[in-house]
């Protein structure tokens, strides 16, 4: 199989990830922070070390400000519902995933917030000045994806934050964590939501949210934390404030192994490899008169996510042919981002999305180019 659905979840993961899950499960899987016995202490140390490792990876100075969540969607909802109040205005882009769009839409429908969606260009580009122009006195938050899950376009978050230093910026790093360098201090990120099971190579059921000093969220979920148990009131300090219930400790052990793998390889090495593969795919497909590329079509301006369509062919049927005839796994249709497809001009039919990772090879990309060419020419 040639696996090109890494934007959905990366596969394979480094062996060390699964080994860490197993070791944690067999040796350290007490309930962290709930008891004083040796196994609970080992679990607590494990969780602390994961938090420190992931915080270090994003240059988060105080690891207590990083909380673990089920996934990026839970992190985004925690941030949006924890921060936004009646009368707030929110600015976002037209490239967002439904994990941002749906909670914002729900809050707008309930009359809690007003929303401005800044349109991106057909290549997925966002002009920082357009974001600044969308601000109002009531603007409480700007929410932006770091990189589009549909076409890979990288949004200029550093430049945008520089234009609006006073407005909190929530970055959806589901597609960029582990793929692009993320330093929350250098980029000016106030809230960072990320997925553990994509570029960070962790298992599913892991993700996280960073909240910058000075920002206080209310808790979306209240419950057991192992702290202040005598009080009915949920703790108001991090990380407990946003981490009710028992965490996915074996999964988080795997996430730490994923982050350590990234640190060993170096993000620059990973980015170089993925840009090379992206360039190879774009070049291979660009010359074909029936194949359309959507998005930046520039390895520098995008992650290793490429959206294509073939004239006269349904994206779902193309993906099916790739899977059945060539053993190439990819994703077709709307990718949980209908507004992004409207932006790219590919709504409602969607696209075929080919998304690569560090573990893909040039030979696999050449095979994919050949397969798409065959399908476009009607050989399949």
């Amino acid at each position, binding site marked *: 199989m040639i696996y090109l659905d890494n934007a959905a979840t990366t596969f394979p993961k480094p062996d060390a990830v699964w080994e860490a899950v197993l070791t944690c499960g067999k040796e350290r899987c007490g309930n962290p922070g709930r008891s004083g016995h040796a196994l*609970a202490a080992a679990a*607590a*140390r494990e969780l602390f070390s994961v*938090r420190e490792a992931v915080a270090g990876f994003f240059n988060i100075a105080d690891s*207590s400000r990083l909380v673990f969540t089920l996934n990026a969607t839970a992190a985004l909802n925690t941030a949006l519902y924890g921060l936004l109040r009646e009368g707030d205005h929110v600015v976002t882009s037209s490239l967002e995933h439904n994990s941002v769009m749906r909670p914002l839409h729900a809050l707008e429908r309930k009359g809690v917030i007003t929303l401005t969606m800044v349109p991106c260009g057909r290549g997925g580009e966002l002009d920082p000045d357009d974001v600044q122009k969308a601000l109002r006195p009531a603007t409480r938050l700007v929410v932006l994806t770091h990189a589009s899950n549909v076409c890979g376009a990288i949004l200029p978050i550093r430049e945008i934050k520089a234009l609006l230093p006073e407005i909190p910026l929530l970055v959806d790093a589901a597609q960029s964590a582990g793929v692009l360098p993320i330093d929350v201090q250098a980029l000016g990120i106030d809230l960072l939501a990320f997925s553990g099971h994509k570029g960070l190579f962790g298992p599913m059921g892991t993700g996280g949210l960073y909240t910058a000093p000075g920002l206080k969220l209310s808790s979306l979920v209240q419950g057991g934390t192992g*702290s*202040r148990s005598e009080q009915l009131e949920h703790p108001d*300090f991090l990380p407990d404030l946003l981490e009710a219930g028992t965490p996915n400790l074996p999964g988080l052990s795997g996430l730490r192994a994923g982050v350590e793998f990234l640190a060993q390889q170096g993000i620059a090495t990973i980015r170089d490899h993925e840009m090379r593969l992206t360039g190879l795919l774009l070049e291979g497909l660009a010359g074909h008169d029936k194949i359309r590329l959507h998005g930046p079509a520039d390895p520098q301006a995008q992650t290793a996510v490429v959206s294509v369509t073939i004239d006269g062919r349904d994206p779902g049927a193309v993906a099916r042919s790739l899977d059945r005839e060539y053993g190439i796994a990819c994703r077709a249709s709307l990718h949980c981002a209908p507004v992004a497809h409207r932006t790219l001009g590919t709504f409602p039919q969607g696209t075929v999305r080919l998304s690569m990772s560090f573990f893909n090879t040039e030979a696999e990309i050449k095979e994919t180019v050949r397969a798409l060419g065959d399908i476009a020419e009607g050989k399949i």
Partner: protein
Amino acid sequence: MTEETTYVLILPSIHYVLKVEKEAKARSIPIELIPTPRQISTDCGMVVEFRAIHREPLLRMLIEKEIPAEGLYHRKKGEFERSQRLR
């Protein structure tokens, strides 16, 4: 540790207990994590114990690292007396 000469530090949650352990190690301040003594109320399960001679550098570390401590107890012959001075 000899009971007459130790303090027990209570932190709001296990994260801060382990943060104290990490920072103390970095400063070569000897501490021990022990299961919470039954006379003291905290339920993250663990507290930090250290000798009286390390009290000043440890309390200074809490301030410098902005670690929110909840209470400090002096352990004397098996009895715990809450110390007024945490900061």
